[in-house]
């Protein structure tokens, strides 16, 4: 009888644990993994970077378990809407066009767009100065969109699947300039591959708000906003920021 009681108790405990685990909410973070230093895949195959540190801090604040799912950049919004993951933390700019497809949280950093090119060349970053140049950008980014809208047919625009491929073509000399997020460019210029290159001109666009995308009307948005506010207030955000940049990017 005593044994039986013990057994039942153990069974009940196991059951309680099991149900708790089963009902604990698990969220999936969507990211790209080819956009250092914001999101990249490290040597062990894990997705890491500024975006992911922020995402995990938000999950910790919301007290939920999170796992990371990667997606190609140009399919990342369709994948969110197809419920492959629950929110996108992948340095995504908040744009009116994207707002038609998804909802955004408050911005978690502010970005600028700035050209980079080989050292020692003189480039004026206006329509006249860029005429006839071959300019690279990542497909489906605001840099690509900005180039199409503002320079249109004046430049020869090359669109890449990943930012890394655009840099590869810049170093091989196939393209004259790359337009991308200033922090991403900053990270690349500091790397070995980027030492022959430098920023050209002033940032061409400096109010690019980066947010977390969720599906339309998903209540998750409010929870993320609250968590974001909390990590900014308690200093977690600053700690992550300082690991990557010697200046605040908020």
């Amino acid at each position: 009888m005593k044994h039986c009681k013990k057994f039942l108790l153990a069974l009940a405990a196991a059951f309680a644990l099991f149900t708790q685990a089963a009902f604990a909410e698990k969220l999936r973070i969507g990211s790209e993994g080819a956009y250092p230093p914001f999101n990249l895949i490290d040597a062990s195959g894990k997705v890491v970077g500024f975006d992911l540190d922020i995402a995990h801090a938000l999950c910790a604040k919301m007290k939920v378990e999170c796992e990371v799912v990667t997606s190609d950049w140009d399919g990342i919004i369709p994948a969110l809407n197809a419920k492959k993951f629950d929110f996108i933390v992948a340095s995504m700019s908040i744009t009116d066009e994207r707002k038609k497809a998804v909802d955004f949280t408050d911005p978690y950093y502010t970005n600028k767009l700035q050209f980079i090119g080989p050292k020692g060349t003189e480039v004026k970053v206006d329509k006249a100065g860029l005429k006839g140049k071959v300019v690279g950008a990542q497909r489906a980014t605001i840099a690509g969109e900005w180039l199409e809208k503002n320079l249109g047919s004046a430049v020869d625009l090359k669109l890449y699947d990943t930012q890394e491929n655009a840099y590869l073509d810049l170093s091989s000399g196939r393209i004259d300039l790359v337009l991308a997020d200033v922090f991403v460019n900053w990270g690349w210029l500091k790397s070995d591959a980027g030492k022959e290159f430098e920023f050209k001109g002033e940032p061409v666009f400096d109010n690019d708000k980066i947010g977390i995308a969720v599906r339309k009307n998903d209540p998750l948005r409010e929870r993320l906003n609250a968590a974001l506010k909390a990590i900014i207030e308690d200093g977690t955000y600053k700690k992550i920021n300082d690991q990557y940049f010697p200046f605040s990017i908020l």
Partner: protein
Amino acid sequence: MQWDVIIQWLPKLFEGVGLTLQLVALSGVIGLILAIPLGVARASQHWYVRALPYGYIFLFRGTPLLVQLFLVYYGLAQFEAVRKGPLWPYLRDPFWCAVITMTLHTMAYIAEIVRGAIQAVPAGEIEAARALGMSKWQTMLFITLPRAARIGLPAYSNEVILMLKASALASTITLLDLTGMARTIIARTYLPVEIFFAAGMLYLLISYGLVLCFKLLEKWLRVDTGQLGR
């Protein structure tokens, strides 16, 4: 489905169709021309003639086209010697990189088709040609190759259609072929279903056109009557 979006972007998609057709036509034709000597050598009875084409075919059939494309486009460009070399004006251009890679790739497959077709020519016909006093080269030129062409044509048409679909990989090296154009349009409209549907339909139309062309060619070459002689 938003049909008006498809119609609005159709002219752009047709631009992509143009580039896709150029890629397939160039690689299909150049690949065939280069594959014939390769296939003949591959069918040789001497091992030292066979060895080189065998190695080539092994290499290019054994690796994915995407990897080959990246090696040619991003890989070669890493070398200073290539960038300073005489071929750089071509290797700099993604279009020629795609044409070169697709040609090298399809050439390996077509060479195998040529080899198979040559070996399928009935031995009696070759013996008859030799008995009539034709030299080895005459037999190859007037008997074996014309017969092999008829035997290999259906397999070649298959390979061309496979290359049509493989050409979608060109979009990964900034080319705006049908797939590249579709992806760029989707980046602006966020309507993957509509645009990929339209692109898929266009691919289907192109394959249908190719199938028709090859059917006509088979009729003209009277491929079916060749089988009656057995």
